[in-house]
């Protein structure tokens, strides 16, 4: 099937959907969260273990559309093993991308940092799908918070995401 050039379904997304990374729930964890996107029923259960200010381990299980599942997979790849501060910065950046309504202006540096997550740029044009792409990222953020991290350097911006 040939899709428009600007298809939301980049090959990277389909690959992650078919071969999700960090899939499965680790036995050893500091926090588990279960997030649901009430408007479409997407679900993710996610566990993290924190050590030395880092996300030492992260795993998840979920159900839902390819966007939510692939995005969770991409997120896992990006933040597992990273310092929490970096993970939160990435989360911020991804949130910004999703809220851009198709008008993001990613610098080359941003693209380098976001890696595969850049593939979700097209989602930002579809307000109804933004929550799908954010599901895993929000779960990760909550899990880290629940595990005891209380960084304050990253400002609260979820509110403004409620339009979708």
């Amino acid at each position, binding site marked *: 099937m040939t899709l*428009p050039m600007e298809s*939301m379904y980049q090959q990277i997304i389909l690959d992650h959907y078919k071969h999700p990374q960090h899939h499965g729930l680790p036995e050893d964890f500091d926090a588990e969260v279960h997030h649901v996107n009430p408007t479409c029923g997407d679900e993710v259960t996610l566990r993290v273990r924190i050590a030395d200010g880092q996300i030492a381990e992260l795993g998840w299980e979920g159900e839902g559309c*390819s966007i939510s599942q692939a995005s969770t997979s991409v997120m896992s790849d990006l933040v597992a093993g990273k310092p929490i501060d970096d993970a939160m910065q990435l989360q911020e950046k991804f949130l910004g991308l999703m809220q851009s309504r198709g008008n993001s202006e990613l610098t080359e540096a941003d693209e380098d940092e976001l890696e595969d997550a850049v593939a979700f740029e097209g989602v930002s044009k579809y307000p109804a*799908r933004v929550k799908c792409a954010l599901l895993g990222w929000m779960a990760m953020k909550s899990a880290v918070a629940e595990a005891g991290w209380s960084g304050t350097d990253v400002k609260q911006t979820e509110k403004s995401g409620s339009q979708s």
Partner: protein
Amino acid sequence: MTLDVEAVRKDFPILSREVHGVPLVYLDSANTSQKPQVVLDTLTDFYAMHNANVARAVHTLGSEATNAFEDARDKVAAFINAANRDEVVFTKNSSEALNLIAYSISNATTFPGADQFRIGPGDEIVVTEMEHHSNIVPWQLLAQRTGATFRWLPIDDDGRLVDSSIDEIITERTKIVAFVHQSNALGTINPVSRIVARAKAVGALTVLDASQSAPHLPLDVQALDVDFVAFTGHKMYGPTGVGVLWGRYDLLAAMPPFLGGGEMIETVDMTGTTFAAPPHRFEAGTPMIAEAVGLGAAIDYLSALGMENVAAREHELVTYALEQLATIDGLTIIGPDVPVDRGATVAFTLAGIHPHDIAQLLDEQGIAVRAGHHCARPVCVRYGISATTRASFGIYTTTEEIDALVRGVTKVKEMFS
């Protein structure tokens, strides 16, 4: 007389649009319909030539605007065969119409002289499991405000009401039965007379949610014999921002007011206020004037086509769509899978592929359908699914568009295989 679909399509400017470089195939009319040029022209003409506030003004523009607005009320009354034009209350949408009844009923608790509408603990409100959230939540909230009990008629595996439940659930304790005429999630057309007969036998008020039938079937409120009917302009080729509550005059005349403000009063005094007769009692503030006038134009458009013809045409379409979709392996219709007592709205699931992905990939082929719970989440819960994909048709839908849908779904399957 049959509908000349090609002629109809020419009346809808948006149908010549392309999306993603391909012509638009709009199969989301149950969500909102598109608008014929005459509705746009009516809005523009109203604002550019006759705009003024209604009822309050003694000048020429005010009279023209008032006449245009009240003519729209006449058109609505004729369209649904109301016995009396004053039974037609303009609201912002169906949801407000349904909430209006629910709030008027709880207001009866503290409103002098409205005893006949009071409900409380021990009383029951009955809906169905296939309702739109707009015909669930207002009644749940009413139950919360009054202490009454909220109950519902269950649905069976085919997407129909469980017939035996009608007599079981609707009892002497039931004060209100609120139910959908045609389900937006399943396409099912409910047995109105069966339910009304039972409700009357137990003395309950009946509220019909006609949001999905008004655009598709001839609607005769007297023949339906219900007490209240709600519907919404944007689904019947009219503007957004306008809906209708129809109610029996004697009930409306006895019901406490809902929203307070300009136009719904008889006289206001700091120490007490008296209220206008229906319909104005229920129309607080400046109404959706242009929108009502635009709805009148949409009704003229539909009436010229003939609602019998519209219904016949859409029956053909759904018959064809059910046949064609049945050829797709792994596709399951959610709702009646035969074109009997059902409207031209078809929801389905596809094994292993999430409805959001289906809808999105169809969109990339120019085909607009809806995916989700369609604001009727209990239906999804009932069938143990998180969502469905829904294609819904209207007066401008062609069999070629249904073919495009079938091709599109087949392509999506290939992509995810």
